[in-house]
């Protein structure tokens, strides 16, 4: 078992014919992901590497029974792409696009409240990967292997690093989930951790957070309230100055809010081991 992405996941890609979309669709398929359709308005009826392309999500869904979507659409159109998938019954929407206007995402969140069964991952995220099954997004599969560690992270490269270090130490992963670096996003740490908690294949949990917002504090509360998973947390940005955006639109300390210190303290108070450097993550997850 795994979370979110399993062998019943049938993926359509919005923006499959663009540079990023076509490259990463190829990578997803190499890994065995069931990519059943692409959606690019105006290119319906054609195909790319034997994957049929449709003009709309509605047509793609009707013809292929896709139940998940990966979005590589440019920022001005990405919010609309998310809503198109949600309105057409796609259950899992994974948006890789970086640079979507904040107000667009706020309106998307409002729109999604009418679709309680829909899960959005991202935007500005690397997507998710279930080793041995498939991926939606851009996580490099060669560093993964099947196992019991669930990874949930805001940062892409730190996700890959953690995954690679775990794999090198012989610890495989159940599912690797990037929730993205934007201030307004879909699934939170809490949403993902709840799924890991309910997944029998997941035994360990690595939480990779960073400065900004208070999603990590909420995650600490959840884990602190009782968890069967052996967990470790790492927070990036403890030396970031107040008021400066550190690369991710959401990575900013405002006044005394969103600091690494507050997040680390929340995890410690919840009984979760806190790694001071990424090199310590593996050690803290292994017994002794």
């Amino acid at each position: 078992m795994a979370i979110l992405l399993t062998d019943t996941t049938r993926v359509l890609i919005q923006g499959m014919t663009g540079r990023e979309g076509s490259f990463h669709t190829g990578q997803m398929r190499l890994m065995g992901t069931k990519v059943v359709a692409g959606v690019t308005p105006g290119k319906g009826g054609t195909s790319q590497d034997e994957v049929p392309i449709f003009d709309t999500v509605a047509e793609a869904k009707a013809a292929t029974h896709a139940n998940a979507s990966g979005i590589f659409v440019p920022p001005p159109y990405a919010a609309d792409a998310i809503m198109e998938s949600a309105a057409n019954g796609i259950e899992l929407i994974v948006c890789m696009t970086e640079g979507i206007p904040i107000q667009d995402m706020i309106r998307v969140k409002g729109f999604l409240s009418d679709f309680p069964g829909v899960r959005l991952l991202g935007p500005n995220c690397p997507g998710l990967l279930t080793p041995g099954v498939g991926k939606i997004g851009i996580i490099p599969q060669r560093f993964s292997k099947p196992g019991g560690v669930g990874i949930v992270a805001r940062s892409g490269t730190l996700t890959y690093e953690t995954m690679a270090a775990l794999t090198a130490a012989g610890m495989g992963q159940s599912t690797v989930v990037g929730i993205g670096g934007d201030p307004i996003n879909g699934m939170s740490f809490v949403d993902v951790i709840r799924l890991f908690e309910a997944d029998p294949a997941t035994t360990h949990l690595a939480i990779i957070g960073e400065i900004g917002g208070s999603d990590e504090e909420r995650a600490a509360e959840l884990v602190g309230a009782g968890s069967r998973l052996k967990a470790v947390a790492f927070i990036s940005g403890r030396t970031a100055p107040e008021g400066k955006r550190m690369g991710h639109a959401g990575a900013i300390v405002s006044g005394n809010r969103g600091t690494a210190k507050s997040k680390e303290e929340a995890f410690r108070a919840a009984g979760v081991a806190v790694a001071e450097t990424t090199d310590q993550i593996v050690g803290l997850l292994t017994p002794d």
Partner: protein
Amino acid sequence: MKLLEYQAKAVLASLGVPIPPGRTASNGDEAAEACRELGPVAVKAQVPVGGRGKAGGIKLAQSPEEARAAATAIIGMDLKGFRVPLVYCEAALDIAQEIYLGFTVDRDHRNNILMLSAKGGIDIEEVAETSSDSIARLHPDPWRGPLDFELNQLAFAAGLGAHARALVPLIKKLYRAIPELDAVTAEINPLVVTRDGQLIAGDAKLETDENAAFRQRALEERYAGTIALDVFEEEAKKRNLTYVSLDGEVGIIGNGAGLCMGTLDLIERAGGSAANFCDIGGGARAEVVENALAVILMNPRVRGVLINIFGGITRGDEVARGLIAARDNLHMNLPLVVRLSGTNEEEGREILKQNGIEPGANGWEAAQRIVALTR
């Protein structure tokens, strides 16, 4: 993009928010002239930070001579790290009451939040800490905006029912900054109630979303670049780099925001301090590395550089070749430590060694090495 007070006021006035008459002045003569025209004025430093009054950046002037003296004292002063380039001379208000009114993004609720409080004039975070109950809050529906009755309720909840008839339309005008201008903060603090019962913006703060710059061209063209950035940030922006200046001596390049932040943390842990944050993105392409290195080497404080790359899709040998080329093209002779991991890491490290760069075994080891080399 953060706007200065006089810019924010001009924008809010265009949405129908009442503002006092005012003039910018870049020297004493202009301030004196503004005072002759407007009568008693507040002379206010134009810098993008809060707490200007407490820091000595706002002075009241009754006469043109006082305005001249105030402007001369304020212009050029250093206010929380910003040199004051000009002042805004604004007709002094006859204040009966000060209200706080502001919209900002509430990350926890994944929505905008409107806050209204009868305790205006001081920092809202301070109000939130000392008397959170005095703040009335509303999360407006992002598709239809706040409704009249919601705002009316809010005004009464804040103890401002007596002003509800004037407040409701004023808040709707301020709200326009969100859907129309992609504001992420639109704040009037204080919103002044004058002795004759008028509502007027005493101060204004407006910040727009950089991700929306593509559809806010007019605003961008008019106001981008008026707040002087740090010279290195300016240069980095020209080269499309994600770069933040810091005040240490170790230049940093990383791929990915989280990895790069983590690298800054490692430098401090090793006893050093970083000169910058620079995220070159997942791909770590050769020309991006060279651009990043070029900007970092312009900073005379930099005594060495640490490059921390995890290659996912990108191959380590390609990254290594790109790094060597960048170093050679820029004739770099400061210490350079590279930590390269991920795809084809062995080949990449071998190339680094052949070119005189001893690769770091891991991030922590590499950070300790560069800190030792730059002591």
